[in-house]
């Protein structure tokens, strides 16, 4: 049995509706003390609503919400031991940077000298103590973001909530801030709940990721498990790139399964599978090996035709047509492939092969939904 006090935030069957739409649908979630948990999903998946319920800006319609083991339903935001870093920063434009950071301490009734000392310390943490007396509008977006972070951190909350805090920054700054955030989180040891739609951000910083879609958590796991072992087709497609094959399980025993995906050869993988059911199988593009001048086929080794080739600098991306007519994407690292691979041209016959550990079983296909996803599809998430 786990003690409720092991969790800083706990959702127990929480539902939140806007009109007839359930933005968050019967979600149960436990945020561990001191962890960096990301809520990841496309817009409208319920991640921001979940965050706003923890902050107290929204109240759940059903279910229990516990913060620090105590019932938080109905508690207004200003009485919660959580603080938020807003996407739009929400710095007070009429106050100086130091007054922005000290705002929360002032509300707590802390003395002026103490406020100033703590705020300065927080600004040092985000390397902005030299801008203490400036106005927010005089700072760049990245600097404002760091002030917003300092303003929330200085409160030393039980949980820090971050609502797509890097969304408005350019790519380079975003990468820097990812490092920065992770460093700060490890330094202060506060629980972070981080909302993002950027899978790379979530993968690089989080201890655990909750992938959300349509108001439910599809999978909650460590980044590596989310990437290597996606439990649903949605997670597989949303995190990284994924080729999907659909076929019927023809054998399943001794921890092996075989699927007939109509590609002329059996697709084989490890794990348990429901015999004779129609299932979806995922293959990561980087796990596919494209071999030129080869007509050797067999299990997990398919004779195919190159449809297109694209150089991505350090990588080559092939789009390959399988015998079933489906197309898959294969990505080869140029440093690790046979130089002959560099010379493959569209129209060439190649074999596409993969290790038996590569195919991921992503569940049974609903008969009524199978049409749209029958051919393999890939998703560009960059």
């Amino acid at each position, binding site marked *: 049995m786990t003690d409720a006090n092991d969790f800083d935030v706990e959702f127990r069957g929480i539902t939140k509706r806007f009109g007839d739409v359930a933005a968050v649908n019967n979600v149960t979630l436990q945020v561990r003390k001191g962890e960096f948990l990301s809520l990841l999903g496309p817009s409208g998946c319920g991640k921001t609503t979940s965050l706003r319920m923890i*902050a*107290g*800006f929204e109240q759940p319609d059903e279910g229990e919400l516990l913060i620090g083991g105590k019932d938080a339903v109905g508690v*207004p*935001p*200003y*009485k919660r031991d*959580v*603080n*938020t870093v*807003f996407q*739009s920063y*929400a*710095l*007070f*434009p*009429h*106050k100086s940077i130091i007054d922005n950071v000290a*705002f*929360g301490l002032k*509300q*707590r009734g802390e003395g002026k000298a103490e406020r100033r000392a703590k705020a300065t310390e927080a600004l040092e943490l985000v390397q902005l103590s030299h801008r203490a007396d400036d*106005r927010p*509008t005089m700072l760049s977006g990245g600097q404002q973001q760091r002030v917003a972070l300092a*303003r*929330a951190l200085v*409160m030393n909350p039980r949980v820090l909530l971050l609502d797509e805090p890097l969304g408005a920054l350019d790519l380079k700054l975003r990468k820097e801030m990812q490092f920065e955030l992770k460093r700060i989180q490890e330094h202060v040891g506060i629980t972070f709940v981080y909302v993002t739609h950027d899978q790379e951000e979530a993968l690089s910083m989080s201890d655990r990721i909750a992938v959300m879609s349509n108001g439910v958590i599809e999978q909650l796991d460590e980044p590596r498990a989310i990437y290597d072992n996606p439990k649903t087709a949605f997670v597989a497609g949303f995190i990284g790139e994924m080729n999907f094959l659909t076929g019927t399980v023809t054998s399943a025993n001794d921890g092996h399964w075989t699927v007939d995906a109509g590609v002329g050869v059996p697709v084989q993988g490890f794990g348990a599978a429901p015999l004779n059911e129609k299932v979806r199988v995922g293959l990561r593009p980087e796990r596919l090996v494209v071999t030129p001048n080869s007509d050797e086929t067999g299990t997990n080794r398919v004779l195919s035709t190159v449809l297109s080739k694209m150089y991505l600098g350090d990588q080559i991306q092939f789009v390959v047509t399988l015998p079933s007519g489906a197309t898959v994407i294969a990505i080869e690292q140029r440093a690790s492939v046979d130089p002959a691979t560099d010379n493959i041209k569209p129209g060439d016959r190649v074999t596409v092969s993969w290790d038996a550990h590569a195919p991921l079983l992503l569940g049974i296909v609903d008969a009524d939904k199978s049409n749209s996803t029958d051919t393999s599809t890939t998703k560009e998430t960059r």
Partner: protein
Amino acid sequence: MARNSNRSKTGFSIWAVLVIVFLYLPIVVMVIFAFNQPSADALASNPGVDPCSLPATQIGNVSVWNGFTACWFPAALHDPTYIPAIITSAQIAFVAAAISVVLGLMAALALARMKPRGRIPFDILVYLTLVVPEIVIAVASLIFFVQAHNAVPFFPQLGFWTIVLGQIVFNSALAMLIIRARFVGMGDTLEEAAFDLGAGPLATFRQVTLPRLMPAVFSAFLLSFTFSFDDYVLPAFTNGTTNTWPIVLYSAVRFGITPAVNALATMMLLLTIAAIVITALILRRSRGGSSEGVAKNFAALGV
């Protein structure tokens, strides 16, 4: 291309100058005629008398230039009716503006947060007070105030307070619109951020909402003050025995007016310009309001 755009630039400049001349030439003329002497005939038939102490009926034609004098300025300041009327008008305008801004602020905050079902009827009522002709409100106010005073003894008699009450109807609606525009533009996030940092509703209002709304509150106050100050129609119906500056002026016009009126108007113009310049300087110097925001607020005032 370049020549074309240059030519159109020149065209626009000329147009802009013409518009400004059209707007401000009357004021310039008024200021010039504040320094006009009584006619030569009037001066000749009143030898040895201070020319600016002559009553309006005896100064001759002052709509033509007779010569320079600055004596209308001291004469205006010593006039027994003008100065008290201006003070009364200023007091009424100040009280009406202050109450209107408070009411408008409260209504703006409430309405912006209201669901459409409650908000739309209220909105319609507010707009109605702005579009109903003032004369209608004036007549209605007169009847209402008289009846109210008859029915409830402590309801004020026609006078200072009934003018204030009547003007609040229009001015609070105006103040509400101005303040709400800024409040809606401000969004929810600043208030949410304050809540998030532990500030309750009152602390948030005092430390975040009100400071952010100050430029709009200030604009609303100034506009409201101006409307009240030179309002004639409503006070003409509800003034009782109280004389406001526009009422005194209108009744003076019947007997003809002296350049002392021009002199007073010129002094008021100078006071207004000084007030606007000082406020602009203060707002620009207080680093909270960007100069852009100041410009917007003055644009709203038509300045």
